[in-house]
């Protein structure tokens, strides 16, 4: 059985989306910046997609700027806002300890190269940022607050609307990385007082290589990409028309099924969580529960086992999953997210993430629940840490 349970890494482009994209590789290849009538089709296609994305967020189409990725949207938002405010003494950035590297590494860059002062807010054991911590961190030097909408590793959904309201009250721009959240949750940028929001198409059954930044009317961060006058002179580079068309389609299709997907995914998620807890002793769920958790995210640590071994064992059974273990990263450091949640190193190394989506079936959930306990037991049997753990439990 092939079981793809890594929808947070990426999703397949849906057939309807692909179909909508196809004409813009061949017949409608015109450069939207050209004057002749033939290129009008390309321009119109981009504007249609802009409206589709804007509608999904309750934004105005003029507030949507297409980028090459969610990462670029994050970079633009942070660097552009910082550079804009620098001359008036706005040199402070507030973010959280569990952001995606697209945010964290951008903050590190701004600190190192531009001298930005960065506050990394801690999170609690379930991964929540405290609104009071944001309040206390804001100073008259704060250029922006950037807190992710929902965490990609453990699925915790942050109190974005509360942070948005606070930032609006304080007059500080608020950016949120919604790369994961936008694929699962209804987002209303007006009601939630969001000033800037990053998104990516390939997390929501659109193509790779296209993202967007929502920029509330009136906000003008410095440009990130310099060159031609595309995107009203705000983001240079010839548009990825097919990709943008695909993004718009994917976003519109998603809005039509958001509530159904949420119900189906949440039910499967909770069944997988309950099944693992029931069948595997000493398994720890990482992250929040219920409606505070992304509907498709399951993240566990198994005492005594290292995550990469579980991934390979699962792969042998046809199951694709993910881990926060160092051994699967380039750096050999365990996941900064799990460490920020207060996990011990060995627990962070032992994490396993399943992320559900449109490819998931109930049979697949059963299959994972069938094979996982055996795999964990096999690896625990050869682990000196598991042995130590069992001994430590004997006295209790």
């Amino acid at each position, binding site marked *: 059985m092939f079981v793809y349970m890594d929808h947070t890494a990426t999703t397949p482009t849906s057939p309807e989306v692909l179909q909508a994209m196809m004409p813009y590789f061949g017949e409608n290849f015109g450069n939207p910046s050209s004057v002749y009538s033939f290129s009008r089709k390309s321009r119109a296609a981009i504007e249609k997609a802009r409206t589709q994305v804007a509608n999904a967020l309750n934004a105005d189409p003029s507030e949507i700027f297409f980028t090459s990725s969610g990462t670029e949207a994050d970079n633009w938002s942070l660097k552009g806002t910082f550079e804009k405010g620098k001359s008036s003494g706005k040199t402070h950035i507030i973010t959280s300890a569990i952001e995606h590297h697209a945010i964290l590494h951008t903050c590190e860059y701004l600190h190192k190269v531009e001298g930005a002062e960065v506050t990394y807010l801690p999170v609690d054991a379930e991964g929540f940022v405290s609104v009071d911590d944001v309040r206390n961190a804001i100073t008259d030097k704060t250029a922006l607050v950037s807190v992710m909408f929902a965490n990609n590793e453990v699925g915790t959904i942050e109190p974005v609307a509360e942070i948005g309201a606070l930032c609006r009250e304080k007059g500080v721009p608020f950016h949120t990385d919604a790369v994961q959240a936008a694929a699962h949750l209804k987002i209303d940028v007006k009601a939630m007082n969001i000033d800037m929001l990053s998104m990516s198409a390939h997390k929501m059954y659109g193509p790779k290589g296209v993202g967007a930044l929502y920029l509330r009317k009136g906000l003008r961060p410095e440009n990130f990409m310099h060159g031609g006058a595309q995107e009203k002179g705000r983001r240079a580079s010839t548009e990825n028309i097919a990709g943008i068309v695909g993004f718009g389609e994917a976003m519109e299709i998603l809005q039509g099924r958001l509530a159904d997907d949420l119900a189906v995914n949440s039910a499967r998620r909770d069944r997988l969580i309950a099944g693992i807890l029931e069948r595997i002793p000493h398994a720890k769920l990482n992250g929040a529960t219920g409606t505070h958790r992304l509907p498709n995210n399951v993240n566990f640590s198994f005492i005594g086992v290292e995550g990469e071994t579980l*991934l390979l064992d699962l792969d042998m059974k046809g199951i694709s999953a993910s881990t926060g273990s160092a051994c699967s990263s380039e750096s050999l450091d365990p996941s900064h997210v799990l460490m920020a949640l207060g996990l011990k190193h060995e627990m962070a190394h032992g994490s396993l993430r399943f992320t559900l989506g449109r490819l998931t079936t109930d049979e697949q959930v059963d299959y994972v629940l069938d094979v996982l306990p055996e795999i964990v037991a096999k690896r625990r049997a050869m682990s000196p840490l598991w042995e130590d753990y069992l001994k430590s439990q004997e006295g209790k």
Partner: protein
Amino acid sequence: MALDYSQKVMDHFMNPRNVGEIENADGVGEAGNPKCGDIMKIYLKVNPETNIIEDVKFKTFGCASAIASSSMATELIKGRTIEDAWNLTNNAVAEALDGLPPIKMHCSVLAEESIHAALNDYREKHGMPVIPMEHHED
């Protein structure tokens, strides 16, 4: 990158040899720490007449290359004298596995170090001088 393993690594990972513990082992050694995500524990049964390693078992917490390195290292020292076993280098373990990804070479180092620790434990218990251990940087 996690799947860039040789067939030998995958074989020793999926079907590790010599897993377990030896009760009343003549030498026990451990290397690594949970912070790095790797811990290897080696148990030796040594014939005191011949100083030949008659049995060896391991337990390892770590990634696939750590488990494969432990498994291969135990195969390489089984039936050898304690002197021969001491001379087993991490490179020899990695080579026997048809190579490890560069970032995973420390797993073979861990195998060498845990074997050295177990051999020194044996030497100490049997009144032989302990050999100073080299500690690799990674």
